[in-house]
């Protein structure tokens, strides 16, 4: 039976564990930081020296850590892209704008164990020669921002943060920056614009890659909360050791957010790929199955923007036919199955769910959250939402299933500035493709009802006779 493997949330849920620094120190906190700060330069065979920060970066590369925010991009690679020769300061931003519907993992870290994040951040900053870092936290986490501010204050009081950290001469300031309710701020360049005090319009890439032209046009690293926490563990246990967790190319642990129609919704930390979707939903130590008498209808495997899986769906993976429920929950398998693990949020829908309503709900969210910068997303997201609103309010047509897909097809695939275009069209494309009969039936039923209700239209008025 698949088990939880608690690495990041090891202490968070222990009874009596408090988010203050004393408690954190009692549980061995900031040991990894001390280790990181005191790494000695290593001599290389070619006579060059490898500095401490360089060694940390190498460890992160070795660990195979992939970003936990959504795209699953290699963290080590991301760091390696940073332009370190520009002479400009390098900034690090912690993306704590957890806003993908279905996701609530970062909340656990921030509220229960803020110092772990701070430690991860200090190490990451040290590794990348960063002296000013921000935590961009979503506006709704009012309490979370307070907790983080308190944690930063505590850390400063202990000389763990600020000038001359732990006497090593390394300076770092971390500030908390609050968002104000915008999903798009989770997109890294949108987040940077927002932090700069502008509308969070994602930037065009090229040329504005954050690693080169990020915050204030300086090289910038944007990492998710969970990713930064992992850095602490990589330093503590070593990259190679970390890489042993999980499965090859899908290393470490992930906190999976499970919500919707399961008995025990909640977050579960697993080794990546060591549990299947089915286990996460049905096992007693995870979701615990569906409510009595219900059967599974659909699963959204990676936050609301991921493509939906239909119960009973089969995929061909490495020449083997795999049931949707038997997919190991990792980055690569889900991509091979045509979806993604995204921010590792599983939303479970049982047979009581009206799939059209569910899609309408998701589409409403995207129509509300589109920043409106580029055309396809701005116009397409609202169009989709309006069409679905019609369909759920008795104004549907049988042809609307195809209509929706045709609209959605015009949004993604690099036509938009950021990945929001994909996020708003993937659900529509996958829902309609996999549950087409329900969409057609609903539209057809509406048409039939309307035909009965309405009287035949009156003849259009003719040109009035000339008055002479």
């Amino acid at each position, binding site marked *: 039976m698949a088990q939880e493997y608690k690495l990041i949330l090891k202490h968070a849920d222990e009874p009596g564990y408090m988010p203050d620094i004393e408690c954190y120190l009692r549980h061995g906190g900031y040991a990894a930081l001390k280790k990181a700060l005191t790494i000695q330069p290593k001599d290389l065979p070619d006579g060059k020296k490898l500095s401490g920060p360089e060694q940390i970066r190498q460890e992160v590369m070795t660990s195979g850590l992939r970003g936990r925010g959504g795209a699953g991009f290699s963290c080590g690679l991301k760091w390696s892209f940073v332009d370190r020769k520009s002479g400009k300061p390098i900034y690090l931003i912690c993306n704590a704008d957890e806003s993908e519907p279905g996701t609530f993992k970062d909340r656990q870290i921030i509220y229960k164990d803020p110092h772990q994040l701070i430690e991860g951040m200090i190490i990451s900053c040290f590794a990348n020669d960063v002296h000013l870092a921000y935590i961009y936290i979503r506006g709704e986490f009012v309490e979370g921002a307070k907790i983080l501010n308190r944690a930063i204050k505590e850390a400063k009081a202990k000389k763990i943060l600020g000038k001359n950290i732990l006497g090593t001469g390394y300076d770092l300031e971390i500030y908390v920056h609050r968002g104000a309710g915008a999903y798009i701020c989770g997109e890294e360049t949108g987040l940077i614009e927002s932090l700069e005090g502008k509308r969070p319009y994602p930037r065009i890439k090229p040329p504005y890659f954050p690693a080169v032209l990020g915050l204030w046009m300086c090289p910038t690293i944007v990492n998710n909360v969970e990713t930064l926490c992992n850095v602490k563990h990589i330093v503590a246990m070593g990259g190679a050791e970390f890489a042993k967790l999980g499965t090859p190319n899908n290393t470490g642990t992930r906190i999976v957010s499970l919500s919707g129609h399961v008995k025990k919704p909640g977050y579960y930390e697993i080794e990546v790929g060591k549990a299947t979707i089915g286990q996460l939903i049905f096992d007693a130590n995870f979701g615990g199955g569906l409510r009595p008498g219900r059967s599974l209808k659909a699963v959204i495997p990676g936050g609301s923007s991921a493509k939906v899986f239909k119960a009973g769906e089969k995929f061909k993976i490495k020449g083997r036919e795999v049931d949707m429920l038997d997919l190991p929950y990792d980055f690569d398998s889900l991509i091979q199955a045509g979806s993604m693990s995204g921010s590792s949020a599983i939303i479970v829908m049982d047979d009581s769910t009206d799939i059209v309503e569910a899609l309408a709900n998701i589409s409403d969210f995207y129509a509300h959250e589109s920043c409106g910068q580029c055309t396809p997303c701005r116009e397409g997201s609202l169009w989709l939402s309006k069409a679905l609103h019609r369909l759920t309010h008795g104004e549907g047509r049988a042809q609307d299933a195809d209509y929706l897909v045709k609209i959605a097809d015009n949004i993604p695939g690099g036509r938009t500035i950021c990945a929001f275009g994909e996020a708003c069209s993937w659900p529509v494309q996958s829902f309609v493709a996999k549950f087409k009969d329900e969409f057609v039936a609903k539209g057809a039923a509406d048409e039939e009802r309307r035909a009965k209700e309405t009287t035949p239209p009156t003849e259009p008025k003719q040109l*009035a006779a000339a*008055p002479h």
Partner: protein
Amino acid sequence: MIVKRKPLNFWERLYLPAMIGGFKVTLRHFFKKKVTMQYPEEKWAVPVDYRGAPYLVRDQEGNTKCVSCQLCEFVCPPKAIKIIPPGPAGPLADRPNAEKMPLEFEINMLRCIFCGFCQEVCPEEAIFLQKDYSLTGTSRAEMIYNKEKLLALGGVHGGVQKWKHKLEEAKEQENFPVKV
């Protein structure tokens, strides 16, 4: 090529049979219904879709439909139409959402060739070729019909009220966060 004329035969040379044939036709018509009309005392019944003089029409609420887009002026082959747009300080349009209507609209009926291009090009269904075919006047000036006259002659056309529809749709949407 030269076509040789066929020589006439005896009866043909006589001419009489042909003349009698002609008189027979004349005689037949003595007993037929007359087709001539005592115009102008008698008036002709104008067929449906007849293309007579172009006039401006009003909508069912009595508003000027023309928005002074000047497409008819542009398309008019004999350049019979002259429109003076309202300009920035001109009168407001009858319909609140349509923003614009002509300050003056003139059709020189002496130039008009009743081609119907103006009706065809009109995006607002504001000008129609109607049933008037006999236009008379005692001076050239009189034959230039102004907006007032064209509207009076044109009557009412009940069509889709697109501007009104738009305005109603916009009013319904005041819920939306459009606040400027």
